């Protein structure tokens, strides 16, 4: 008969699992010396062969950034970042014409991560724009999408091929003056993804990008821009795992979404950057600015995020509900373990009439993890008939972790409805015992309980992503039984 330590603490066992995706790919990278000044920005722009207006835009951002101070209001703690010690550019050296030319090591890296880069994608219904370090090396399904008028490519390519679209929308949702990290990103962003869905077109597949940090000490500054013209629909998936590294790495991405009349953008993220080791050494600093603008009537933007990685997460995917009748949604699961810290949430800014927003946030803290929900619901004067529903739930695993909630509500019109609910629960010894008494192992019990807690968020994810999300939480999903 199997014998086991009857007193083993399943919560601690679950909490002490190791990061499974740590490895480093050896690819020769072309990098610039550490440090940031105008010459670095000019170099980046030149390397990428950018038009003059974009260089000017970058320089404006840099000059503004130099006047700014790093924000300190977030409930996260880390040693000061030396921005002059960071390298701001790194690119694989070879120029690539097709997938066959891709460095086999790189392909092997994606292989290890289980990322489908070839025909498998057709079966999976996923088109992948893979970002490796700072330059996109492979884009698939472009031709197929192009037939429908959908543009899906790396940001650099968009600058070359569709400069008028980039110029029109870049910085229109997150201006370079927005915040410290957005300004930095605007000055030095190297690549990212661009997606444009024309009027009345429904994108037939989930668009997906895998981000990956590789070269040591290289800050990653991704720029993503998605524009949905009137009546368009697109679902975009962003997922990432990162190789194990000892130094802290800065990641300051900017994502801008624009939805015009009756357009819908669904943006889903599974974030699994290297979180650091058990003592909190290493790990990614993830300072991201994500914002969507519902510019047109009845536009809809939906953010779903599953945040399990990074040493520090600072991230507030937000919606500006400008068009009358527009809808914003935010569904979030954030897990902090060991020494991880997350300060995440959303802003819903109601500008137009009869705008609606929904916020569902699930924070899970384990080990010494600190999890903060920070959210703002702002209803401007003209937003008659605006409605918001917020629900923020926290779950604690163990007694050394923490959960914090900071909801800000600011309503300037009497004709609005704002509801906020919050709860904190501890995963109960009685719940685990109940499961064990039915024959379920403690580990499966914890997984099951955590998954149940996150269910409202997971069901917002596209199926294949939901599976990955549950794997990331180290558990199996509820079957589609019954």
């Amino acid at each position: 008969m199997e014998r086991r330590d009857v007193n083993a603490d399943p919560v601690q066992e679950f909490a002490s699992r190791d990061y499974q995706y740590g490895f480093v790919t050896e690819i020769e990278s072309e990098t610039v010396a550490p440090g940031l000044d105008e010459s670095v920005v000019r170099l980046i722009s030149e390397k990428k062969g950018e038009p003059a207006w974009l260089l000017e835009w970058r320089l404006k951002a840099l000059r503004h950034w130099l006047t700014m101070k790093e924000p300190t209001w977030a409930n996260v703690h880390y040693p000061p970042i030396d921005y002059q010690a960071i390298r701001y550019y790194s690119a694989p050296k070879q120029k690539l014409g097709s997938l066959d030319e891709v460095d086999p090591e790189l392909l092997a890296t994606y292989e290890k991560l289980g990322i489908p880069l070839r025909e498998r994608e057709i079966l999976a219904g996923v088109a992948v724009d893979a970002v490796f370090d700072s330059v996109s090396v492979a884009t698939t399904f472009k031709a197929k999408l192009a037939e429908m008028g959908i543009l899906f490519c790396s940001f650099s390519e968009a600058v070359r091929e569709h400069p008028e679209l980039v110029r029109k929308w870049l910085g229109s949702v997150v201006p370079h003056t927005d915040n410290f990290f957005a300004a930095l990103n605007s000055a030095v962003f190297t690549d990212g993804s661009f997606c444009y869905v024309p009027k009345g077109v429904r994108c037939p597949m989930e668009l997906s990008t895998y981000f990956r940090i590789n070269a040591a000490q290289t800050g990653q500054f991704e720029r993503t821009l998605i524009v949905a013209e009137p009546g368009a629909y697109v679902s975009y998936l962003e997922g990432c795992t990162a190789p194990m590294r000892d130094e802290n790495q800065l990641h300051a991405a900017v994502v801008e979404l624009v939805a015009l009349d009756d357009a819908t953008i669904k943006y889903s993220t599974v974030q699994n950057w290297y979180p650091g080791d058990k003592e909190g050494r290493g790990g990614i600093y993830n300072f991201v600015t994500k914002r969507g603008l519902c510019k047109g009537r009845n536009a809809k933007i939906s953010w779903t995020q599953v945040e399990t990685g990074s040493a520090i997460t600072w991230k507030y995917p937000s919606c500006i509900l400008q068009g009358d009748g527009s809808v914003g949604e935010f569904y979030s699961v954030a897990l902090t373990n060991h020494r991880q810290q997350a300060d995440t949430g959303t802003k819903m800014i109601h500008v137009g009439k009869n705008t609606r927003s929904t916020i569902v946030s699930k924070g899970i803290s384990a080990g010494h993890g600190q999890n903060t929900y920070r959210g703002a619901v702002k209803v401007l004067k003209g937003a008659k008939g605006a409605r918001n529903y917020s629900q923020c739930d926290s779950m604690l695993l163990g007694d050394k972790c923490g959960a914090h909630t900071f909801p800000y509500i600011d309503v300037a019109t009497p004709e609005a409805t704002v509801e906020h609910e919050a709860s904190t629960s501890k995963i109960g010894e009685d719940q685990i015992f109940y499961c064990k008494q039915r024959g379920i192992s403690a580990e499966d019990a914890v997984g099951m309980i955590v998954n149940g807690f996150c269910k409202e968020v997971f069901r917002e994810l596209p199926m294949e992503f939901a599976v990955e999300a549950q794997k990331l939480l180290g558990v199996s999903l509820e079957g589609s039984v019954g």
Partner: protein
Amino acid sequence: MLEIKNLHASVNGVEILKGIDLTVKAGEVHAIMGPNGSGKSTLAQVLAGRETYEVTAGSILYDGKDLTEMAPEERAREGIFLAFQYPVEIPGVSNLYFLKAALNAVRKHRDLPELDAMDFMKLARERMRLVEMDEALLTRPVNEGFSGGEKKRNEIFQMAVLDPRLAVLDETDSGLDIDALRIVAEGVNKLRSPERSVVVVTHYQRLLNYIIPDVVHVLVDGRIVRSGDKLLALELEEKGYGWLEAQAAGKTA
């Protein structure tokens, strides 16, 4: 089936069970009665292996195996089932999913193939009839928003699905109205078999009008002070526990 000898158990350093001897043979139904605080529920929890209770002396043999060496989930897979006095809620996890995971864990342990969703559903539907449970409860989260009666029915339904060899019912009658009590008791009766033993922990005699026990034990202050047939339960109904408590106190004094 079950052989308990001189069992002592404590919680947070306070001794609750002070030397229990109990033998339950296959196919028998034993009732454990006693006043509040006598240790009835502690006995049930100790049998299931709850970690907060420490066995300080004595032995529990189940099918000849030392139960105290087994983790709670192993006991469950070996066929021990506890119907909880206060069934726990698990938000977001459907009853059906939970029970399928449980059954498959048990089946795996017994070297049986796991049941797929279709086969499981068939089994679940069939066993639900035993306790006249509403099928809608299957897709609801485990015990969440269930009435007291629904929770207790759900426990017996789980028992019917998991097919245990030793079932311990901890105050399954508490919080039930008379109709629900009858349905639950009939469910248990349908599950009686020569291979299955049942230990019914109860404060009141009324449950034993429906589930007729082979043996009745009275637990007072952590010890079994009297055992008898079903008539003992009726005697208790009439006289209360006071006379046995006084006797027990006299003995220890």
